């Protein structure tokens, strides 16, 4: 019991600490790919600390909602991230929520972020919010459809069970799984506002989505939101890894050795995924905002196809 709680706590802390590092790593790789030196790996931590120290500049007519939102976003994202198996499944609280809940938690984070974007009443906030909800309105169903096909396959929406099932030999190679993987990657890109959907590095207002919403934030509030964004990327990476690369996962309560293996495996997966992301981002260009629906629509279709193909390719 205590050990379980300890593992759970370790997991929660680890995601919190790992997230900025992951971002730093991605940036570093991207910089290297374009032959730049790039900032150091721990730059994100420095940014966060600096933001914490700075004073907050609040717009005149910002309401209480504007000040509460960062904490809500952070909390929702953190809880969601903590519920995804990283190096071990069957954690103490994993049964409090399943995959659907995780998706919904991220949804609520986005809900409040969009509201905060509209709170100040500048046109940028509204612009960002409206684009964000448009993207979400396509990304969320796609994500849920992916969840469906996984759940229909594994007979559960419980992540630990899904991971265990995917790890088991009875899965085999399936068309629908491939489609789900692709769809999930596309959704992850959109959700994390990465190229080609959105550019985390830009500050040209007319092209941004995510940055436009948080344009008014500063200081500690901004730090919270940034941290939540880092967490989100980590969350999706661990989600993909634990569903589609479920090897080396510790199945719970099998001693420190397997835990260590799990952790090591986890780190490897993250590294691979991060490099892949960096390569992809440097390879493609950002697309116009109104091309995004097509991008996500493709994801939606893929997910739906994957779900339907389940019944056809069941025999495989």
């Amino acid at each position: 019991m205590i050990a379980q709680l300890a593992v759970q706590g370790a997991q929660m802390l680890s995601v919190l600490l790992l997230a900025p590092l992951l971002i730093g790593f991605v940036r570093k790789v991207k910089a290297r790919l374009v032959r730049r030196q790039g900032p150091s790996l721990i730059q994100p931590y420095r940014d966060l600390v600096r933001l914490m120290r700075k004073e907050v500049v609040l717009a005149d007519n910002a309401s209480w909602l504007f000040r509460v939102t960062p904490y809500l976003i952070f909390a929702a994202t953190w809880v969601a991230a903590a519920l995804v198996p990283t190096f071990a499944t069957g954690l103490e609280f994993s049964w409090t929520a399943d995959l659907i809940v995780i998706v919904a938690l991220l949804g609520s984070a986005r809900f409040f972020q969009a509201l905060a974007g509209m709170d100040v009443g500048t046109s940028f906030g509204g612009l960002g919010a409206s684009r964000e909800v448009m993207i979400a309105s396509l990304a969320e169903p796609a994500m849920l459809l992916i969840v469906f096909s996984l759940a229909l396959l594994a007979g559960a929406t419980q992540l630990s069970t899904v991971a265990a099932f995917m790890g088991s030999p009875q899965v085999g190679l399936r068309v629908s799984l491939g489609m789900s993987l692709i769809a999930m990657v596309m959704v992850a890109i959109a959700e994390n506002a990465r190229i080609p959907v959105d550019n985390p590095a830009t500050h040209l207002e007319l092209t941004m989505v995510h940055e436009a919403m948080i344009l008014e934030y500063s200081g500690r509030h901004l730090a919270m939101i940034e941290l939540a964004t880092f967490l989100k990327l980590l969350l999706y990476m661990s989600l993909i890894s634990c569903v589609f690369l479920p090897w080396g996962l510790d199945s719970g309560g099998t001693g420190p050795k397997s835990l260590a293996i799990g952790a090591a495996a986890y780190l490897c997966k993250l590294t691979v995924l991060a490099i892949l992301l960096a390569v992809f981002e440097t390879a493609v260009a950002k697309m116009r905002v109104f091309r995004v629906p097509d991008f996500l629509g493709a994801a939606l279709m893929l997910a739906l196809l994957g779900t339907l193909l389940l019944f056809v390719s069941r025999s495989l």
Partner: protein
Amino acid sequence: MNSTVPLLLCGPAAFLATAIMAAAASRLAAATRLVYGATLVISAVLLATAAGHLAGNPGEASATLPLGLPWTGARFRLDGLSAFFLVVVNLGGTITSLYGLGYGRHESQPHRVLPFYPAFLAGMNLVVLANDAFSFLLSWEFMSLASWALVMAHHRDEANRRAGYIYLVMASFGTMALLLAFGLLAGPAGTYAFDAMRTAHPGPFAAGAVLVLMLLGAGSKAGLVPLHAWLPLAHPAAPSHVSALMSGIMTKVALYGFVRVVFDLLGEPAWWSGVAVLLIGGVTAVLGILHALMEKDLKRLLAYSTIENIGVIFASLGLALAFKANGMPSAAALAFTAALFHVLNHSFFKSLLFFGAGAVLTATGERDMEKLGGLIHRLPVTSFVFLIGCVSISALPPFNGFASEWLVFQAILRSPELPQWGLKVMVPAVGGMLALSAALAAACFVKAFGITFLGRARSVAVERAHEVDRWSLAAMAVLAAFCLLAGILPGFVIDSLSTVTLPLVGERMPVQMAQPWLSIVPIAESRSSYNGLLVFVFITISASLAAFFIHRFASHALRRGIAWGCGFTDAVPAAQYTAVSFAQPIRRVFGGFAFRSRETVKMPAPGALEPARLKVEMHDVAWEVFYQPITGAIGFATERLNQLQFLTIRRYLTLVFLYLIILLLVLALWP
């Protein structure tokens, strides 16, 4: 236990008495308080009785009055289903009356509201209690009539008159459909008692006809696409607390009618019946929420979102039908419970949201979101509870909307066990539709709250707004609390629903309150589980932890400044995003097929001074496809037939003569 029903019947009687009293005394100043106070007490008593019955689970009770159809009598019966819907109705009634105590004072013409309000409540209660076709239809139509009178309360407004007209015509269309359905169920002998119908199972064809007729009849009242046309007109036209009743409660009564006939009276369903209901439900959900997204009238937006929720409920009812038809009672119980749970939840947050809209209306006199904004500073409490309503209806954890939608999804995940390939493939597709509608709902209510309460004031009316009276605030606060409670303690609701599901689908969901940490487990923990309470606790803890650390270790410095305008300072409030512009991206994505919408930009030549213009045209497809042809046909027929009014006497004689000749010819050719 047979004393329950007479006791419950005293309720509607008391309502009617109140209505008569109100009609007599409606001009008095105190009338408002008296009427709403009376209804508050009555529906509270009814609520307590029904809840007691639901919790105590003493089985059925029935009573027959020597009224109504002579040889049948007015039969009333209380079973789990009726008890549950009585709870829904009277919970709504109680809180609405509470709200009315404050809101009613702003009513300009109380004598057009007060008499009909109790009558409306009485009608809804009677529908739920009725146990024979005649009393059911009588109460049903009485309910429509009373609500029509309430829609016509502000009759000087042309739009309201039109709304009332369309509403009542559609209502009686629905009643006719129900009438035919009951005619089929009753058979030539005319056995109109539900008990008799229950035993006599109609043939497959008749059963199908009944199902279709019920979809038409109950669906038109509940607002299924394409029978929804009246709903967004009529619900907003009424005074806001009545809108809340109509949207939050009356649609549920319609659902009760559907469930009562299809699940109870009709006997074993055919598997394809599930298909029909599922599909209609999914389509309704998506189209309803898309319409809501395009709205800029707050109350109309809410009405459209009602259509969406009805779609969700119907979809899961269809799921329950499919499972029931295939002999999967446990899955059926899951889907059915999800539907009923969502019924309860929707009655909570939809009433809450309409109350909020009413508060905004009283405070600013505006329903048009384009003239609102920044109300969060003016109406702090209202905006807070409205926010809770928005979060709940957007199905975000840990609130109640999510709990029921989660159950629906769990039910969808049982679909692989269905034998029919059609269902196997269709159920996940419908699941996709529901997911889409959920995501769009979130977008819609970001817009609703953001445009109305956030940002800067778009009109002077907002700057003069003040927080509304305590009664209204109390009512809204209570509902907000319910939204949270039902969200974090869903197990309690699910267990109390077992009384309803057991007799109707022959199974109940496993006991939830026994689960550790009050989490809910539809099938097995290894498959899926959700614990609203813990999620709530976690979020609060981690949020407050973060806040604590921040305030402990980071800087507290805070400076107010003007918002960053990209170098362009003091932008006018009109520069904010409006409701329409907010919906524009989604309109570009979905508008094409949903509204056949087209955007045309008129860009002036470079150097020209006139502004660029964006013209958006959208069509209500359902209206143009289904309603305009009918009205057109009627117009044509009347035009043609009307000539017969202007004939000469000789022509009329000719008509008589020809008719005589025809009849004689018929006779001559008679074998």
